[in-house]
Structure formats: C-alpha cells, structure tokens
C-alpha cells in the first residue's frame, strides 16, 4: 500500500462531522474516535492519516503540502486566504458572517467613520472595501459582542449561528456578510501527484453528502 493520504481536520465539531462522514462511507474510524491525546491517527482501510489541528493550522499544513488535504470552515479560509484548492462544500458546520449593531442603531447614517470590532479583520476589511466605505477596524480576541456595548465600536462582524448571544446582549444582525460551511481543501501539488487516490475519495464523499 502506498503512503497514506494525510488529511488535517479542524478539531472540534468539524472533526466530529468529518469522522461521521468517513464512517458513512464505510471506513473504520475507531482509532480517531478513541484518540486519547494523539494528534495523528490512522484510518487504515481508507489509506488515510488523520491530523487534528486548529483551523488556521489546517490551512498552514495544507499550504506547505505536509498534509495533502484538509477540512476547514469557510470562515477561516476567508480570513487566512492562501494557496490551495477548495474542492468540496461539505455542507456541515453551516453558519454565517454577519454585521451586527446595538438594537435600533442606524449604522449607515451620518458622515462619521464607523468603528468595527471583529476577530476577522480581513473579512471585515474586504466587506467594507467592496462598499467603498472607510472604516476603522479593531481586532478583538474574545467576545466581540462586548465592543459595541462598551461603546468601543459601532458594530461588529462576527460568526452568527442562532443569534442567541446577540439577542441576549441587545444586539441584532443588520446585514449578512457571507454564508459559511465546512470545505474540503487540497494542496495544489498533492492533487496532481496523487490524483487518482484523491479523486476516488472526493467522488465517494460527493456521492454521500
């Protein structure tokens, strides 16, 4: 058997959903389910090697070709960018990027430059750049909802799933920025040098989505 294909999975929910998908395809993922603290795990009957990593690192490993493929959210792809192929929309991990403000705040009114707090400065910049709107972007690491409440920012750009956190803090979505879901990505060289194997896997996955 040839060297296994290495696939990096974003730890957490995307990892669980991907393992579920692989099991649906009939592969034995016992090693991944019972991983303990191991970070590299075999799925022998698929000739796969699963690598567990943080979202941003999935992209880094795939870009450098040390992992052939990866499963990562569109949110991370939009923020990090990079050079890889984005092959399949896996359909799970659905949510969206949205612009939210304090309830009732008229965001687009007035001539003042608006301040936006976000964990995703690149996504935010390109969203407002397309509108031809100058904004001041402040990077926040934790709960972004705090920034408008503390009056540091006029609005936030963040991932919204159900909107409960926003609602409970008196914020509301005023505009959708982009839909998000999990994506299957591949290194540009791996896809070419191991075309047959990767193609077989992708066809299987697409048939079972």
């Amino acid at each position: 058997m040839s060297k296994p294909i290495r696939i990096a999975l974003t730890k957490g929910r995307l990892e669980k959903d991907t393992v579920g998908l692989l099991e649906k395809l009939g592969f034995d993922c016992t090693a991944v389910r019972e991983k303990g603290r191991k970070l590299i795990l075999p799925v022998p009957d698929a000739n796969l090697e699963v690598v567990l990593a943080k979202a941003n690192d999935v992209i880094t490993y795939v870009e450098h070709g040390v992992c052939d493929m990866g499963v990562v959210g569109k949110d991370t792809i939009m923020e990090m960018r990079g050079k890889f192929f984005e092959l399949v929309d896996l359909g799970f991990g659905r949510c969206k990027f949205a612009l939210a403000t304090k309830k009732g705040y008229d965001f687009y009114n007035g001539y003042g430059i608006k301040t936006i707090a976000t964990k995703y400065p690149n996504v935010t910049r390109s969203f407002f750049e397309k509108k031809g709107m100058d904004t001041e972007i402040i990077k926040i690491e934790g709960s972004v909802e705090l920034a408008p409440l503390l009056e540091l920012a006029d609005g936030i750009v963040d991932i919204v799933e159900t909107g409960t956190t926003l609602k409970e803090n008196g914020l509301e979505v005023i505009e959708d920025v982009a839909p998000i879901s999990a994506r299957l990505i591949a290194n540009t060289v791996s896809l070419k040098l191991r075309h047959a194997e990767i193609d077989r896997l992708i066809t299987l996955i697409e048939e079972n989505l």
Partner: protein
Amino acid sequence: MKNYDLITPEGTRDLLFGECAVRRDIESRLLGLFIGCGYSEMITPGLEFYDVFNLNSSYFPQENMYKLTDNKGRLLVMRPDSTMPIARVVATRLKDAMLPLRLCYDQTVYRPEPALKGRSDEISQAGIELIGSPLRTADLEVISMAAEALSSFGLTYSLELGHIGIFKCLVSHLGVTEHDKETIRKLIETKNFPALNDMLDSIGNNTVTTALKKLPALFGGEEVFDKAAQLMPIDGIKEVLDELREIYCEASEICGENGTITVDLGLVNKTDYYTGLIIKGYLQGHGDEVISGGRYDRLISEFGYDVPAVGFGVNVNGIEKAMAKNVQTKTANGADAVVFAADGCRVAAFKEAQRLRAQGLIVENALSDDLDTVREYAKEKKIAKVVIVNGESKEVEE
C-alpha cells in the same frame, strides 16, 4: 535602541557548507542543462526601476515588491522576477541580434511574503527564455528541457501543460465585465468548485457556463482532451484544444516516461503574461510548484519590440527543500590533506601544497607550529593526510 546586528531579516537565511553545496549542485546541474542546449547565461541587476514591472498590463501588484529610491528620488525595486528584466534587455541591447535568442539565468529574486508563514523572501531562480520563435518546435524544446530539469533530481515529478487560450475563449463568450472575468479566473485557479458554481449560476445556464464549471476538473492524461471536446462545443475552442493535444502527445513521446507529463485545462495563473502554452512542474516533497513557465508573445512588445517568446523558471529553493526531505544530500567537500611546515620550511611547504593542488587535491596549510595539534586537527576534520615538509624531505602520514 534595539539592535538587529545578530540576526537576518525574516524570509532570508544564511546557507552554510552542506546547504550551500546542495544549492550550487542544483544550480550547476540546471545551468549545465541549459548551456548544453545552446543557451547563453546573462545577469541582470538586482535593482531595477519600478517602471520595468509596472507596464500597462501591470503584472506585478506593487505590494509584492521590495521598493527603495535612488539618489535622484526615483523609485527602484529589488528584482521580483527575471523574465521582465530580460524582456527589457531583449527590447533594447539585443534588438538587432539574430533570432532566435536562447538566454538563461540563475539569480535571486525578492518578494515580500507574509511573515511567519515559513516562506522565503529571497528565492534563487534559474531559467531559460527562448526568444523569437512562434513555432511548436520552440514550445517542445522548452517543455522537454523542463522535463529533463525535473527528472534530473531523482524524485517523483510531474510536468503539467495548460493553455490560457481555453479560458480566454470561454469567458469571451460570457459577456461579463473584466472584474467578473477576473473573479471567475481566480475561482478556476483555486479549483473552488462551490463558489464557481454559484457565480456561474448567477450568470446563466448555457454551454459556456457549464464548460467553465467543469474546467477546473479537466486535468489528468490524454483522456482530458476527449472529455473537453465533448463539454465544449464552442467556437474557437477546438483549435486551441487540438493545438495543446498535439503538443502534449509529442512532448509525451519525447520525454514522458510513465505518465509524467499531464494536462490541466484549469491552469489560469494570476499575474501571468502568458498568451498560450502554460507549464508547471511539481516535485514530490515540495508543496508548491517548482517550475513555472509558458509562452508570452506580447510581453516584450510592451518594451517596444514585438517578438514572441517562451520560457520557464525553476525555483531552486523548492528543489532544495524537496531534496532535503527525500534524498541523502551531499555535504561540503572537506580537504584531502594538510601541509605542515617544520621550522624554517614555510616556503617549501607552501610550494608543496601548490604542487598537490595542481594534482587536483584539496589542500590546506597547517596554521599551527605544533605537529601534534595539526594531527589532532586533521583527525577531527577527517582530513586523510598530514604532509610534513622538513627541508628537502617530505613525510606523509595517513
């Protein structure tokens, strides 16, 4: 004030001994191949005027260049590429030279990369430019040289061919803005099927959009051409497909042992001046292409001399990385002998060292007056011989 006198800038590195030997070895193999095919080496300045890279079609985004100013305040850049400076030379000093011109180079280029990504800002590139021939033979010459360059490193490789004409022809039938064309190009380049499908669905549902949706999936061997012909019953496509197929078949016969030559009709590079054939080379162990090239028939005319050209560049750093992972690379050559001068015999010792070097040995002069120290030194550095020169007598210790 913080001093940065002990480290090198991010994206740069010192190459010592073994690493240096590997780089020189790769470079000399490539240059040997190029020169053997009749190419003449040239060197262009590391600093160029910004304008050289800021032509009408603006191939290089300004944020991708290191910039500085000369003493008249004019904007300079650290050369981000070698093809454009060579195009400049061809359109000026070589304007009256007989065609075709076969030129090659081996020099560093500079590109500011994002920090902490593990990429180099200083890249060693070797490549060729075949100038003045629009012929298929010229394309094949360049392809076969690229295949030979890749195969010479003893690693699994693949050389991929594409043709920008397919994409250009398809989008010309779409009737969308330049901006939308660029978005579509980007999505095809990154094989971003989900977004590409969404974008094309919003434009319409016809043979052209269907063909564009499939374009990034059209890569592999010769079967790709049949699939493509079926998918694209569109004016102008057949000619381009036939042209590429002929090139592919001939190239496979010339240099494609066991399927190492492949096609990808979805090769549509950014910042590229390519007008026809596109070439990419991949090496196992490096996550990015190591060869990039193609036909650029209009680039030199932007410098005022209308002449066709085709060529490729090799990313030497990429090959270094692939080799470091896969093959036992050689270390720097150590000395074969060290010559020790007994008291008062310095001149004789130097002459003896010269004589041995003339025989092709690597010979060091001992820099100690104590013979035991020199023996110890030779042992430590794995130098096989200690030559002791004492008056007329020479004694060799193994």
